[in-house]
């Protein structure tokens, strides 16, 4: 199963730069870039931190290819 994300889309909606999001979540900008490009799968903890920073439900930010979760 592949973990998909709309991190970039939601980040841009919130007018956040990659640097600002990285700083708020306590990671490097490279990590944000890798997650947005779906080259790095974040841990549950980091996924929840990112969702909290973006003030969005975690299953709206990340979902599995199987369709489980809130891909609405």
């Amino acid at each position, binding site marked *: 199963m592949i973990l998909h994300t709309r991190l970039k889309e939601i980040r841009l909606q919130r007018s956040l730069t990659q640097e600002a999001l990285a700083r708020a979540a*306590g*990671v*490097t*900008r*490279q*990590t944000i870039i*890798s997650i947005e490009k779906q*080259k*790095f799968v*974040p*841990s549950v903890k*980091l996924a929840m931190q990112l969702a909290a920073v973006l003030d969005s439900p975690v299953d709206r930010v990340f979902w599995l290819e199987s369709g489980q979760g809130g891909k609405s």
Partner: protein
Amino acid sequence: MTATIPYYVSRVVLAVALGALLVMTGSPWWAGSLIGALALAWFLWAPYSGRYVVRPHGRAMPLRRDERAESINNKAARNAFVLTMLVLGAVTVYYGISGLAAVPLPVLKGVLILGAVIYVTSDFWLRRGE
């Protein structure tokens, strides 16, 4: 800026100590100076490299790997360890079959250097890939 002063002071001390250690163990003074200078350059660059999360109030230890960097570091270390052990095993078998008494020290040093090269190359490659 003042929060990171302990980091820079401690790294200058480390770089000088590294250079002095090399000179004391028989390396030429220029080699000790060069390695110390390279180590200091690395320490000065590290906070701006994007490889680490910088904690402003981390005092002498403000740099920390995030989970992606940790994952890359683990993979690179695993690659280096496995390949070094395989090469070491092959060298040991080769010298055993050849009937020689023991593996010469320069060969063992070469295997260790190879391990370090594999680690650095893997680290670079994995960062580039992600």
